[in-house]
């Protein structure tokens, strides 16, 4: 933000981020408690399962997006990659390819799309906003062309079944979140690569002069973001049982919003893995609760907008007061 004077904090960034995450968790818990009181249907095992499924896809997108935002970039293409990936994985499976191979190819394709973004940024000097906006536009076109505007029906039952089942009582889709989040946490918070990512977002020139390969980090960030989107594409294809290029529309904004609600700064160098996760589930819970309470669909939009403002505002307050 342009007018903000760097907040002067004497506490540590690490404690800070931890406490901050705690308070976001607190908010999530608060919402859940309120909903449990408001409707008996909320705190049922079945609904919690649904909720975990509903939030899982945006959560994974938000984690990927966070890597990119930490480098002071943005990835508008993730929604389009989700839609495109459903088409690719559905097409491959329907062409008779073994499911695991179809999935691997789809993820690699996602990675390559991310590398293309990084190429545009690093080599062609394009702003991230523009290159990812361009692929957003083009990818939807390619996906529509591949399916001729229709959907590809996936007939492999086991693939579809995966998204419905649970393991140890937790829906498989949420296990996917864990499978993505744990390595992401290690990468971002415990490895040197994570440190380099922050350095690039904070001051690329200083990072460079400290021996960090800025282009490499850009490739990694965009590659991971696009690959997360491809993972979500596979999950969505499994969940819907179809490939359809127009799916995932607007999910990029939801992912970015989750990330920012989770404390990521769009100016780079500030962000975590747990924050966006919680951000995504806050949004999912709001929408789940509104559905259970049968809130009018139009009111739901109004409330969601207002809650985003309130949540981020209190977050800002908390940051300033320390």
């Amino acid at each position: 933000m342009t007018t903000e004077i760097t907040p002067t904090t004497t506490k540590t960034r690490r404690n800070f981020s931890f406490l901050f995450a705690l308070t976001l968790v607190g908010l999530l818990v608060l919402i859940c408690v309120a909903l449990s009181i408001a409707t008996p249907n909320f705190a049922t095992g079945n609904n919690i399962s649904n909720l975990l499924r509903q939030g899982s896809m945006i959560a994974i997108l938000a984690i990927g997006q966070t890597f990119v935002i930490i480098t002071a970039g943005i990835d508008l293409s993730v929604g389009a990659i989700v839609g495109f990936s459903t088409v690719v994985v559905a097409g491959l499976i329907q062409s008779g390819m073994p499911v695991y191979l179809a999935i691997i190819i789809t993820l690699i394709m996602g990675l390559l799309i991310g590398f293309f973004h990084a190429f545009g940024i690093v080599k062609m000097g394009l702003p991230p906003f523009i290159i990812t906006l361009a692929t957003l536009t083009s990818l939807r076109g390619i996906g529509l062309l591949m399916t001729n505007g229709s959907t590809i029906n996936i007939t492999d039952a086991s693939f579809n079944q995966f998204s419905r089942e649970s393991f140890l009582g937790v829906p498989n889709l949420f296990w996917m979140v864990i499978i993505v989040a744990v390595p992401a946490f290690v990468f971002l918070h415990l490895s040197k690569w994570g440190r380099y990512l922050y350095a690039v977002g904070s001051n690329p020139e200083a990072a460079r002069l400290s021996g960090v390969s800025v282009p490499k980090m850009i490739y990694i960030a965009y590659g991971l973001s696009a690959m997360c989107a491809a993972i979500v594409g596979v999950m969505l294809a499994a969940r819907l049982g179809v490939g359809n290029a127009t799916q995932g529309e607007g999910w990029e904004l939801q992912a970015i919003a989750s990330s920012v609600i989770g404390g990521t700064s769009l100016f780079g160098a500030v962000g975590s893995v747990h924050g966006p996760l919680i951000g995504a589930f806050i949004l999912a819970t709001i929408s789940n609760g509104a559905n259970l309470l049968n809130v009018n669909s139009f009111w739901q939009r109004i409330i969601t907008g207002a809650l985003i403002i309130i949540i981020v505002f209190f977050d800002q307050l908390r940051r300033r007061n320390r």
Partner: protein
Amino acid sequence: SMAQDVTIPIIVKDTTSFYWQIVLAGARAAGEELGVNVPELGAQAETDINGQISILENAVSGSPAAIVIAPTERSALGAPITEAAASVPIIGIDSSAESEAFSSFLTTDNVQGGRIAADGLAAAIEAATGKIEGEVAIITNSPNAGSLEERRQGFMEQLASEYPGLTLVADKYADGQAATGLNITTDLLTANPNLVGIFASNLIQAQGAGQAIAENGAAERVALIGFDSDDKLVGFLKDGTIDALVVQDPYRMGFDGIKTALAVSKGETVEKFVDTGANLITTANMEEPRSQELLNPKVN
């Protein structure tokens, strides 16, 4: 040989939807058969009225023999169509618009489609529970799309007038995403344990709703009626997840639209209004030849 130079563009509401691809396929087939050049145009979302007006303007610039259009919005497209009709004959398909200038209409009555869906839902509920009673819900793909509003209207009117035992407990709008329809449906099932039926009024939402019902194993308890069809929905129809589909005849609309347009451009007289109809296809009648024809249109 004259006909080779004849161009008749067709402008649909949303080229990214399967339904409109079938319309385009019909138009394409007619073009090949009649030797007419058929540019396939259309906006990229049903709600993009301005986009469709621009496309119409551009199409008029090309001075074609006639234009076939499916207006996205009744009143907004009225004046542009009247203006375009001053230089080019206009044939309307699917939905109408507030213009006197159409040379011919081949529409399907979406309000009627909604009524048929209500009838189908009532029948399915009766078949499952033995009585036409209980809570039902409707899911609309997105607000402000003319034909979806008409379906919703027809469905609600029919419920109110014919099936007093069925109460509408939820009237939901999604955001064009199947995943949203899926989430809404799971939450509906959670929030309304007594729910007995859902009408998902277009293809995408029927996919989402069908998946939710399958996921929750609620096919026995909840009847689902969809609108339009594709392989996925036919699969659901087969396995009983979906009880019935309301299916229009988009292929014929495209085909006959071009045919009529060519006739008009040659100065022949044509019928002013044609209703291409909406049909209810259930698990029971889905194997009939007419049903198969509707469920498997010759796209490409």
